[in-house]
């Protein structure tokens, strides 16, 4: 398929592929085993200017958008879904500043995030507030020219390694979702510490931790948008970032398929390559087709968001849901083609399956995505 990429987009893609092949593939297995953050890969991505591809030029970016972010995330995920999410999660933490921040905030925070000098994280989830973002317990109380934050976030990707955090806390519990407010909080702020580091099934090179706020004083100027706009900030961020998760799933699926096709041509049984068997061929053909369909959906959605179309929530949810379901199915089938070897950790393929699983869960489970898709369908039909 030709998605008619521009010269520049092709260049970015090539560069990301080069980093994936030269910097990620050699370390993916080890970082997965040891559950270690890929500092060196992050540095390589920063040195290559890739943290800024989706950010405006006036803040030190390259003027691209969500589509460019997806291209990079997809390429990195082909080599390791865990390392790719460290990159993508920084974008997830940067996007709310970009879409909700005032000029001063953008000028202060985005250039360092665009250059990769700093890494960002987005903190919404709490033990009692997973898919239900309105049940947030972390509080922010205004005292003079600052807020005092108390509470805990968990399952935060890039927690502990990120420098800049966008944290959702409630400034008015009685208002539910409309009482949520978004804050920019920097690492090192007094009263802000990190709790438990999670031991995960997949994406193990990425760091997932708790954030702990204990009378943490944050200047009032760090509020993103206005008080009470935290829920909107979250929804709009996820609308823009879901194609990124979809791109991660897409990359994982494609990466697994590429390895599997190669394996199928090398592996011999009954005196010939197993790729000669129709049973294997049909599986490969189905996988390739489903991946391509997912790609078309992801790319179209990303381009829609970049063109600033309204009502992207449905498309955004579709791309995330479909691509992640495809990734799960494809990686399971890839292991099947590898046979017994595929089940062993000596071979790279089982990791793809472990990495794929999370894409069906985070940034809204696929059940939530279906709700969003249905809601937007119903909304559309009422308009008519």
């Amino acid at each position, binding site marked *: 398929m030709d998605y008619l990429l521009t*010269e*520049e987009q092709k*260049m*970015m893609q*090539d*560069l990301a592929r*080069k*980093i994936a092949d*030269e*910097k990620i593939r050699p370390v993916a297995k080890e970082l997965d085993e040891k559950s270690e953050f890929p500092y060196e890969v992050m540095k*390589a991505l920063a*040195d*290559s*200017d*890739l943290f800024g*591809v989706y950010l405006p030029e006036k803040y030190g970016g*390259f003027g691209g958008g969500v589509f460019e972010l997806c291209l990079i995330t997809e390429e990195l995920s082909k080599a390791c879904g865990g390392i790719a999410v460290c990159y993508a999660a920084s974008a997830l933490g940067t996007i709310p500043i970009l879409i909700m921040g005032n000029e001063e905030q953008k000028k202060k925070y985005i250039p360092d995030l665009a250059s990769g000098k700093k890494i960002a994280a987005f903190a919404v989830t709490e033990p009692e507030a997973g898919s239900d973002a309105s049940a947030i317990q972390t509080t922010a109380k205004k005292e003079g020219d600052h807020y005092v934050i108390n509470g805990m976030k968990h399952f935060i990707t890039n927690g502990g390694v990120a420098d800049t955090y966008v944290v959702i806390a409630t400034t008015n519990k009685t208002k539910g979702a409309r009482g949520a407010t978004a804050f920019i909080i920097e690492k090192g702020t007094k009263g802000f510490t990190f709790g438990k580091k999670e031991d995960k099934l997949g994406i193990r090179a990425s760091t997932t931790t708790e954030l702990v706020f204990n009378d943490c004083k944050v200047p009032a100027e760090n509020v993103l948008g206005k008080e009470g706009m935290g829920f909107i900030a979250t929804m709009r961020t996820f609308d823009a970032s879901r194609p990124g998760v979809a791109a991660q799933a897409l990359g994982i699926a494609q990466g697994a398929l590429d390895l599997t096709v190669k394996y199928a041509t090398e592996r011999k049984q009954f005196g010939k390559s197993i790729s000669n068997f129709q049973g294997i061929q049909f599986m490969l053909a189905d996988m390739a087709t489903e991946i391509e369909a997912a790609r078309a959906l992801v790319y179209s959605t990303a381009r829609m968001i970049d063109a600033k179309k309204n009502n992207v929530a449905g498309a955004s949810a579709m791309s995330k849901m479909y691509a992640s379901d495809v990734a799960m199915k494809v990686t399971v089938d890839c292991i099947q083609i590898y046979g017994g070897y595929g089940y062993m950790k000596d071979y790279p393929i089982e990791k793809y399956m472990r990495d794929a699983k999370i894409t069906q869960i985070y940034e809204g489970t696929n059940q939530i995505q279906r709700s969003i898709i249905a809601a937007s369908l119903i909304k559309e039909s009422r308009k008519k």
Partner: protein
Amino acid sequence: MLNIVVCVKQVPDTTDVRIDPETNTLIREGVDSIMNPFDMYAVEEALRIKEKHEGKVTVISMGPPQAESILREAISMGVDDGVLLSDRAFAGSDTWATSYTLAKGIQSIGQFDIIICGKQAADGDTAQVGPGIAVHLNIPQITYVKKVENIENGKITVERLIEEGYEIIEASLPCLMSVVKEINEPRIPSLKGMMRSKKAQIKTIRADDLDVKSEYLGLDGSPTQVVKIFSPPAREKGEMFTGEVSDIVEKLSNVIKEIK
């Protein structure tokens, strides 16, 4: 301010080169041309010297017009200029004619303080062109450099890899050095660099632009000639040891005993 010249060569990507198991011949379809992997270390070292001491890095290559792509690749890593020596008159050059042509090309660019080459080219593996250039230009030569220790007062101090360890060598500039893989880890280009390289002007130099004698160029200037080319004899099919670990170990021990 140092003027650094890096010599690079375009070679077939040997990671793509495969042997057809049925016919035992080389599969050449789809083999990309890339920058000689050893030259990447030379480019990187030049950039590091430039970053430390200030200067200008020029890459030079002799090859067909399409070799321009490796010069652009070097520019995307941060090199300032690219020069391509390209002319049918250079075709058929062996290492003698190649080092002569490159030496003349380097002289035509102007001032130079350090010339850096990769250890050898991955297609020919001869490692002759670097020393050849040094002789043609009558400058000191240091091969197998694994570390640049210091550059000051017109002198360079390096560590040179030898079989037993390494030597510490000092030479006055200008000089030529060839570098080994151990010296550094080449950087990946930046997006800014790649955009610059797309627009960069590559200077193409033809034989007429150089102060050269035609009897030293190309096929005529090459004392050696390939007279035959053939596939290496295929290795005999090996024997596979199977069974219990103890059986396998016994068989292996017997093989080893026979050799020792």
